[in-house]
């Protein structure tokens, strides 16, 4: 066939043709395994180089960097990743994978070090950002190519707690005399929003155990803010020196408290009146009076407070945590007189009974707020029936929350949430996640608490609601 040339070149003959060459192409032994895994298991696999630790996707036979043979070191890179780079293709061409406009993105899978090119759909162009989280959508029918992953789509971001709370009706106490946590017939009352607190450090958790433990005021502020973003209404704080030692220094405690309040003004801050080992009664209470936090811990019995190897029973640190009746009374009075709401720490039923005895003097404002603490070496370990006994022992209009040391943490807060109580998490009590991995920070444990609340259909309390529920002064 010939076609017309342009004017002036009418006699220049041009032959028109088409090259359509059939071909076959072997994906290779490495590529074949990738494709069959995607096709049959909906799993995306890369290969790791044992020499330089890079995980390659697409998988390949040798490492680009060091020529190590890596073809058999398969690793699951997960089905989601982040956009490292993208463009919106706005011109059409018959060879394009989609009709323009469409988004072409480089996507780095969670477990891979090299991004790979794919198509991003199910999102608006203006919402595409470097760093956005995306997940693979697998093709319905296999083509035995990379298009067995049909495209990627944005991972549905869960609305933040603050957004979720803004979209629901605010909780108000409809019955001042409501019996805590229980409706008629012993059924738990989960209608109140659940208050999540994060104990950021305690006195003993150090950075060599978990690098996310904050020491400086700025670090406390950052951690507290992350916890608030994740859903915490309160943080519990033992201030630290730069070297990590717990401190009773008023200025340092005030600086830490103020840093948190500056970063996150509405967050409730609960200071420890224990401070750390070996502090005098004066050192313990004077800082509370000086700083006047929203809330402070009030400890209820003199007890062993030790560090013991949980497997062998060997004692590492022996210490008597002194909380005499006089201290319980004087600390409690001082707090109430200064507008600081006590959080009453009960390490066993004896401590709870001590408090109820002293409470007869009438200086505790209502409602009283109890924290059932489990797993301290010197206090009781978490047991479901003991929890219920303690809940039944507190005054009818009192609130209860709970925290547990180490592996007691998540079971005890889950029980509290079911029974209508509140939840405390944080690196003070436990440095790990439920799966045993180190927590990236207290905020990650707050996320677990939020999931527990979500599973039970309980709203997560805003800071305002938490203040109303616990009877705190207005911020």
């Amino acid at each position: 066939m010939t076609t017309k040339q342009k004017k002036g070149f009418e006699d220049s003959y041009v032959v028109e043709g088409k090259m359509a060459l059939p071909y076959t192409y072997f994906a290779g032994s490495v590529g074949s395994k990738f494709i069959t895994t995607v096709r049959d298991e909906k799993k995306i696999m890369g290969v790791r180089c044992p020499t330089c630790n890079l995980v390659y996707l697409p998988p390949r036979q040798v490492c680009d960097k060091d020529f190590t043979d890596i073809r058999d070191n398969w690793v699951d890179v997960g089905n989601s990743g982040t956009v490292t780079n993208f463009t919106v293709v706005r011109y059409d061409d018959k060879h394009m994978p989609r009709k323009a406009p469409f988004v072409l993105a480089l996507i780095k899978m969670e477990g891979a070090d090299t991004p790979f090119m794919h198509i991003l759909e199910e999102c608006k162009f203006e919402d595409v950002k470097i760093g956005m989280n995306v997940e693979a959508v697998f093709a319905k029918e296999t083509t035995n190519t990379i298009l067995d992953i049909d495209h990627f789509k944005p991972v549905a971001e869960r609305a933040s707690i603050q957004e979720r709370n803004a979209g629901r009706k605010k909780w108000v106490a409809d019955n001042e005399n409501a019996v805590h946590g229980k409706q008629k017939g012993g059924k738990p009352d989960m209608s109140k929003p659940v208050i999540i607190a994060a104990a950021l450090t305690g006195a003993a958790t150090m950075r060599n155990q978990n690098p996310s433990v904050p020491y400086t005021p700025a670090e406390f502020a950052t951690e507290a803010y992350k916890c608030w973003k994740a859903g915490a209404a309160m943080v519990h704080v033992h201030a630290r020196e730069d070297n990590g030692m717990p401190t009773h220094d008023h200025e340092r405690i005030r600086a830490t408290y103020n840093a948190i309040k500056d970063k996150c003004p509405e967050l409730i801050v609960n200071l420890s009146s224990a401070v750390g080992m070996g502090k005098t009664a004066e050192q313990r209470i004077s800082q509370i009076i000086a700083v006047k936090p929203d809330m402070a811990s009030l400890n209820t019995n003199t007890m062993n407070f030790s560090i013991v190897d949980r497997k062998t029973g060997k004692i590492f640190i022996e210490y008597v945590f002194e909380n005499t009746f006089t201290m319980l009374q004087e600390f409690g009075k001082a707090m109430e007189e200064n507008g600081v709401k006590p959080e009453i720490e009960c390490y066993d039923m004896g401590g709870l009974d001590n408090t109820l005895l002293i409470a007869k003097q009438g200086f505790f404002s209502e409602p009283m707020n109890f924290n059932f603490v489990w797993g301290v070496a010197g206090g009781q370990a978490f047991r479901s029936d003991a929890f219920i006994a303690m809940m039944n022992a507190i005054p009818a209009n009192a609130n209860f929350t709970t925290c547990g040391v180490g592996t007691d943490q998540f079971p005890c807060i889950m029980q509290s949430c079911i029974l209508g109580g509140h939840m405390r998490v944080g690196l003070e009590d436990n440095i790990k996640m439920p799966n045993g991995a180190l927590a990236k920070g207290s905020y990650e444990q707050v996320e677990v608490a939020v999931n527990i609340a979500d599973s039970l259909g309980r709203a997560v309390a805003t800071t305002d609601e938490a203040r109303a529920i616990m009877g705190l002064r207005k911020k």
Partner: protein
Amino acid sequence: MAKRVAIVGTGQTFHKSHRPDVNGQELINEAVQRALADANLTMKDINAILIGNMDHFEGINYVDCWSVDGSGGVMKPVIKITTGGTTGASLAVGGYHMVGSGMFEKVLIIGWEKNSESDTTGAITTAFDPIWDRQVFAGAISGLAAEAQAYMARYGASDRDAARVSVRDRKHAMNNPHAQLRKEISLEDVLASPMLADPIHLLDVCPRTDGACAVIMASEDTAEKICPNPDWIWGTGARHSYAYLGDCDWGRLTSMERVAKEIFKKAGIKEPRKELDVIEMYQPYSFAGLIWIEDMGIVGHGEGPQYVADGNTDMGGELPINPSGGVIACNPIGATGLIRCAEAAMQVMGKADARQVPDVNYAVSTGFGGCMWTDMLLHGKKKPN
């Protein structure tokens, strides 16, 4: 290296978007005749031919076989080199190796393309892995757009910064009768042209061009007899950078950085910004004119936009880039890299006419393509030590 190598003659066609008046052999012949005339040599003097273009960019493959009518390769050794966008530069590097080895005294190097006859994206797509990349590949422009996006995200540059490069090259092209696009454009023209793939506008990218270029290299044994002031090749280099599209460091051209370091070190160039006199860069789109001069070591990372905006790379500036108008004004792909080499040689030899930069001691020419691949040649007036 056994022999020092010089360029003793160059020839180019007058490049157009469409040359309906010539076929491949005829186009090639135009460039060959001009190069021979420039060097004052005849076909008898040539010991070997290197030729190349892009696979599938014309209705015919295997140019090494059928081109002998135009190239003069009958009964001579003919070798084809095709390496994607770098083809023309790879031809020059290959010619340097052949002459430098001492086994071929004079080598004729030809790069050509009759791009108007092809389905460009279709042809380029055949270069990508059918399993991994071809299914999601969206043409050369989309890949470059990914580079530009990454650079903008890392260094805060804008499409206006890049447009300045297009404006410069199109202005320079006014001095080059061989360039295809000889019409000045403004920043506003670039920014108002259609968006092809964010952030690349139509006027940010190179055109498709029909054209050919030929270069003759000779060893030190005859170079100065052929040509009173030949262009000496001080060094060449080539670097490949990825196996799959996602592997490279998007926003940086690592291959450029490596190859520049190697060549400048070999030549004893410590401050390329001050010691080089002109660069002919294979710069297929405007952002490359910002990013790759940083990778070449002319300015620091993120400093390209300001350096270009201040006019340093304009004619008359500190270090003029692309006096020919570069790739943005003219892109017969298989010839493009060799045109950079020929233009750099003309600058050193003092034959660049209206686009001549005064007193060129050192010039650099580059090639780009393949897998974010860079080729580079360092040209000099003095004979290398």
